[in-house]
């Protein structure tokens, strides 16, 4: 940019008579300005100012780094993690999540009954649930909100979460326009009935997802068409919610503040008086803010700082397993990757332990399957391990002994330092073990997404974060023709298990046995090469209580409080 300025300047350098007096004035003014800036700076230094975190502990205000700037706070149009952290404090669904176990616990519904066949759910709403403007919260609010969330014109990317409900898919895709045909019924103001087209054992988990949260009809309608995603109802001063906190301030790219909602039914349990969220896209800045006493909790930790904290201040860093897998996908429709032996050779020749210990500084767990271990008790099968000899043999069997005749291919990843390091490592491992040549192809995020979608790749980086705690959120990705299945993988038995058998199995252990079978099938066909399981990393003040680590990195705000451990 500087050179451009210089260029413009040269073309403009026309000799002329200068304004002597204004120069002096400018010089004097700027000297004054500098002086005042310096003075104000010194004021900050000598005043013995209380650090923001200390003040926060005194006042019960938690300061949290929150990643990207939230796109919006409408529970039905957003889908990101930063938004989720805030929306879960402003609204509450039928059920809530226990942060320790991740099992559902009562939210707006104080109890529920599930019919024998698993097709009908009856929710009994608590009578003391209120909106933040003191309106009573009733079953009709849920019905109307769900209708809005599924209305095609609103273009809710999460509307598919309602699809287990009778006719929800037909309504959301515009096939029918009469919402009374959808399996959601209000039998009385405090009873909501939901009928399913097929059993969905993970359904209760969905009723804690923000896409199923109730929204305040009168407020939304006062800002225009409820199915218009561009109205300003979800702003401070406008937003009416039903969660433990209220939105009080939102300065874009600066901070967003929420304060305790006195009308929340369980407000006696809420201990924080406020939470302030700071957009912290730059991890290094976020880490500095934490060190400077501006944040109690960070959204992430720069990977090179992790060993430093582990060594010097282990009580300030929290690292825990996360519901996400980093893997590579292989285009099974493209030679030579259409041969399963080639795909297996690729998978077996990756020394994940070495990769994790060196490139990833021991931070993550090597993965040998798609679903992360510990997803509500699910343990994925391990059908293969690092085996370079077997990998060579498989490649030879496929007709490429020692890599002879193997066509050169590209490893696709989106531009990012970490992805590049991993791609380089894989490139070397494949070259050394199998004797095959890969080149690296990094693309800007959007271009990379486009290339994957068009199946214009051989081997490509990918990752997946679970939407809810159930193996299904990972495994339904690889059903035949699935929207996220860019590999061309298709297996009838796999489809049968994921789409029909597992959902009809009410017993959790039996269902997990089925999922294990499906995952074994997937790993035998190897359209994906698992690399590692994610972990969430946070810098965290020891004074934060009630925020236990869990695999979804989920915070149930009403349980969080600030209290420093006794020294």
């Amino acid at each position, binding site marked *: *940019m500087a050179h451009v*300025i*210089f260029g413009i*300047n040269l073309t*403009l*350098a*026309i000799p*002329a*008579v*200068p304004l*002597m007096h204004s*120069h002096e004035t400018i*010089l004097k*003014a*700027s000297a004054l*300005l*500098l002086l005042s*800036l*310096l003075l*104000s*700076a*010194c004021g*900050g*230094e000598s005043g013995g*100012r209380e650090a923001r975190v200390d003040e926060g502990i005194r006042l019960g205000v938690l300061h949290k780094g929150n990643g990207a*700037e939230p*796109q*919006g706070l*409408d529970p039905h*149009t957003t889908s990101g993690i930063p938004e989720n952290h805030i929306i879960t404090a402003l609204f509450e669904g039928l059920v809530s999540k226990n942060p320790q176990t991740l099992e559902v616990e009562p939210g707006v519904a104080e109890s529920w009954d599930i019919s024998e066949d698993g097709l009908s759910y009856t929710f009994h709403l608590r009578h003391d649930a209120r909106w933040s403007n003191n309106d009573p919260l009733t079953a009709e609010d849920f019905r109307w909100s769900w209708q809005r969330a599924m209305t*095609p*014109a*609103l*273009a*809710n*990317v999460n*509307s*598919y979460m309602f699809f287990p409900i009778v006719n929800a898919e037909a309504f*959301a*895709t515009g096939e029918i326009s009469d919402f009374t045909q959808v399996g959601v019924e209000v039998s009385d103001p405090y009873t909501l009935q939901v009928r399913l087209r097929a059993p969905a054992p993970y359904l209760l988990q969905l009723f804690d997802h923000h896409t199923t949260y109730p929204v305040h009809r009168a407020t939304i309608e006062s800002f225009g068409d409820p199915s218009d*995603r561009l109205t*300003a*109802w*979800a702003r401070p001063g406008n937003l009416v919610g039903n969660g433990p906190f209220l939105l009080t301030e939102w*300065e*874009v*790219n*600066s901070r967003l503040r929420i304060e305790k909602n006195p009308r929340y039914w369980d407000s006696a349990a809420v201990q924080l008086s406020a939470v302030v969220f700071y957009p912290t896209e*730059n991890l*290094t*800045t976020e880490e500095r803010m934490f*060190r400077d006493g*501006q944040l109690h909790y960070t959204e992430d930790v720069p990977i090179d700082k992790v060993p430093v904290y582990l060594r010097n201040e282990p009580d300030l860093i929290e690292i825990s397993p996360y519901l996400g897998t980093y893997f590579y996908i292989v285009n099974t429709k493209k030679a030579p990757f259409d041969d399963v032996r080639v795909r297996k050779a690729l998978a077996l020749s990756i020394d994940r332990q070495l990769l994790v210990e060196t490139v990833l500084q021991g931070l993550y767990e090597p993965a040998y399957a798609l679903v992360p271990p510990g997803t509500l008790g699910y343990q994925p099968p391990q059908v293969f391990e690092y085996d370079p000899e077997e990998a060579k043999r498989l490649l030879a069997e496929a007709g490429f002994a020692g890599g002879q005749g193997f066509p050169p291919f590209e490893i696709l990843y989106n531009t990012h330092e970490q992805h590049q390091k991993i791609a380089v490592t894989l490139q070397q491992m494949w070259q050394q073990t199998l004797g095959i040549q890969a080149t690296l192809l990094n693309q*800007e995020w*959007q271009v990379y*997404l*486009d*290339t994957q979608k068009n199946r214009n790749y051989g081997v490509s980086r990918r990752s997946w974060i679970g939407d809810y705690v159930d193996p299904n959120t990972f495994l339904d990705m690889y059903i035949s023709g699935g*929207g*996220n299945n860019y590999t061309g993988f298709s297996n009838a038995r796999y489809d049968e298990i994921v789409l029909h058998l597992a959902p009809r199995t009410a017993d959790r252990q039996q269902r997990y046995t089925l999922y294990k079978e499906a995952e074994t099938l997937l790993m035998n066909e190897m359209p994906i090469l698992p690399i590692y399981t994610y972990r969430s990393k946070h810098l965290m003040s020891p004074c934060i209580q009630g925020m236990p680590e869990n695999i979804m990195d989920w915070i149930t705000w009403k349980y969080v409080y600030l209290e420093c451990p006794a020294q």
Partner: protein
Amino acid sequence: MWRFTVLRVLQAIPVILTVITLTFFLIRAAPGGPFSSEKAVSPQVQAALEARYRLDQPILQQYFSYLADLAHGDLGPTFRYPGRTVDELILDGLPITAELGFYALMIALVLGVTAGVVASLKPNTLQDYVPMGAAMVGICMPSFLLGPLLVLVFGIWLQWLPVSGWGSTPGDKLLPSITLGAMYAGYIARLSRAGMLEVLSQDYLRTARAKGLPEYVVILKHALRGGLLPVVSYLGPAFAYLLSGSFVVETIFQIPGLGRFYIQAAFNRDYTMILGTTVFLATLIVVFNLLSDIAATWLNPRLRYQYKQ
């Protein structure tokens, strides 16, 4: 003078129109789109999203509707932040960016002019090499290095200044202003040194000295006038760029200015935001260049005469 101004304003219109047109069609040609995500979106949702943002219309129609809205000062809704408009986000960020830019420019002027003038008085001696070396460092050291260095020293080690923020803690405006000003200071130092050297060898200065004027009067009163001219014409475009914000400085210091929108909008394929920020920057540059030209013409009788012809 009037003729000149009107002429230049008329020339600015096709320039801005070309920028809009090129940007509009180039961003549409880029792969991906505002609604692509790692998670597949159903075709119905995709269609509804496109309809809401008029992306389902023929591209020429979209182009003309955009121009029509723009004529009313409406830059449209952003794709990234539903419920907010591009106008609103630009207007929110502008005062902060302008304030930061102003401080940076003041710091740049004080440091740059001082260094340049000092250097020009004894060219090719230590008195020249030291400030010019510093200026070179200022130009070459990218703000993503200088910013964190300053933060490390003054924020983390000495604990004098906050490491980030804008207007929330006293003194938090100082480090970003210095970081942003450093590069401009370097340029201004070099420009003022070159300008001064040219002027110092002129006859009228020898006359001034021969009259027995003290050296400081010669320099401050007679030499600076002509010597700083290149700096004056540099300020217009420099301020235009400063007003468009600095992505790097704003990110490092967590400043809610305009700069971050430029880069993020491109990554997100936020069509209206890309267009809005580009149109805004293009207009600023055109306007500030126009103002510098008018100022130069007004200052320079020879140019004034030329335009009368």
